[in-house]
């Protein structure tokens, strides 16, 4: 059976121990800043900070695998399209016969690729070091309703659960002779006998789970208990505020002509 939709990797690094809200604010701010700052050097600085944190968190190897699979094709595509065909291109970097590659295109592609890299690395760094349950728990401790917290937490688990159920239904239908492989029309036809039981099973499971939640007292009008407190500190609070303020400050600076 599939687990939840969590990418969390057990660890005891500084990032693992940081307050979930600090990590959340850091991630959002870093992504925003990567797209706001004007020059390649600033984006490189952000990427360097992210790389140091990735090493500190001990998730470098896992991140490289993700980066190669996700970022490499994007980077190659950007470098090719921008270097050869950007309308601003005029300084020739090199030429192979009639094919000319331009410096401006390379610069623009490098900026775009680095921004996307920052976005992906920051997101995965957050996912690798933060359990989804901790994010919702931290938000509930800051006033998010338990019902909304439950919705968020269960939403993160429902995709693998549904995929697991679909897999079992598919296996059952295959064992009764349904062909689920082959040409596209054949596969499309095979979806109908899979979808109906999947939808029905999901509805039944939802009804049963709703009952189970009532039986366990979900929704009782009692003061919600905090099972654990996340370690927080003045340094983390200041960091959160500083990061949150850095974003509007960068926007204002750009509007005022920061280049």
């Amino acid at each position, binding site marked *: *059976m*599939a*687990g*939840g939709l*969590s990418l969390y990797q057990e660890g005891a690094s500084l990032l693992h121990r940081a307050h979930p809200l600090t990590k959340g604010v850091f991630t959002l701010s870093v992504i925003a800043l990567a797209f706001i700052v004007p020059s390649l050097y600033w984006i490189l600085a952000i990427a360097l900070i992210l790389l140091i944190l990735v090493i500190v968190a001990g998730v470098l190897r896992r991140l490289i695998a993700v980066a190669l699979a996700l970022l490499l094709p994007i980077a190659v595509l950007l470098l090719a399209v921008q270097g050869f065909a950007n309308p601003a291109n005029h300084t020739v970097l090199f030429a192979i016969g009639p094919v000319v590659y331009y410096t401006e295109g390379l610069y623009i592609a490098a900026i775009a690729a680095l921004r996307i890299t920052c976005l992906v690395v920051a997101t995965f760094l957050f996912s690798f070091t933060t*359990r*989804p*349950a901790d994010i919702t728990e931290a938000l509930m401790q800051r006033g998010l309703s338990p019902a909304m917290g*439950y919705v968020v*937490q*269960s939403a993160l*688990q*429902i995709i*693998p*659960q549904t995929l*697991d159920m679909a897999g079992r239904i598919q296996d059952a239908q295959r064992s009764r002779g349904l062909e689920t492989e082959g040409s596209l029309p054949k596969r499309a036809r095979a979806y109908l006998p899979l979808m109906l039981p999947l939808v029905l099973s999901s509805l039944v*499971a939802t009804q*049963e*789970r*709703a*009952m*189970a*939640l*009532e*039986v*366990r*007292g*979900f*929704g*009782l009008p*009692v*003061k*919600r*208990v*905090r*099972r*654990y407190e996340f370690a927080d500190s003045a340094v983390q609070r200041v960091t959160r505020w500083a990061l949150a303020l850095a974003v509007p400050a960068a926007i204002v600076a750009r509007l005022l002509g920061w280049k």
Partner: protein
Amino acid sequence: MSEPAVVFEDVGYAYEEAPHEAVSDINLRIEAGEWVGVTGPTNAGKSTLCLLAMGLAPHFFGGKLRGKVTVLGTESRAIKVIERSTDVGLLFQNPFTQISGARERVHEEVAFGPECHGVAPAEIEARVGEAMDLVGISALAARHPLDLSGGQLQRLALASLLAMRPKVLLLDEPTSQLDPAGTAAIFEVLSGLHQSGITIVMVEHRLETLCELCPRIVAMVTGRILADGAPQEVFNREVVQERVGLPVYTRLARSAALPAPRPVRLSESAKAFRTPIA
């Protein structure tokens, strides 16, 4: 005499839009601390009996309820299911849907119910540890609930229920997904709970198990109670033997033409077969 745990008075219940009642003319009084086994063929109304005791029928399912279902002194119409969950626990047949679907660790799943009831954190920790120890899942505490096998999930569902410390336990086939060793372990836990004074109503198909464990059996057929009493009394009735079945020891004794009352438990069976047949 103390207040009974569960009382059904002339109860009939039909699910919404159902053409006929799922259970009819149910009169049942279960005293506090009793362990009652409920058995019968498919569509006998066993699960509906549990849903009525919990209050899910009619509160959750709608439908039409006749008569009165009273649990721990409160009539089911007068109390919501979430309020009843303070004292009464129901274990469903399907453990997969019993889990909250929102927790990433087994121990967090066990804590879900007590958290909903506002139990103090230290008390929750104690209850969670105790419940996981009881059903033998302490080693799985850090696993994701969805990574567990069917049997492990069933243990988790039971632990989650026990952590809520109910006074009345309604168990709908609590060991349906467990292997023989797991089943024996769970029944040992239930024996301990019974001895501590908890009322248990357990739906079960394995008649030998029921006879060994439950001092009282309720046999149901097509929504009605066919027999209610001690195991030997219930399974020595011809009508129960025909419509519900009979434990293997009773069947052996019948094949050997032993005189009634025939044995229903292993110990009685050994004794009966040693007795020369007149």
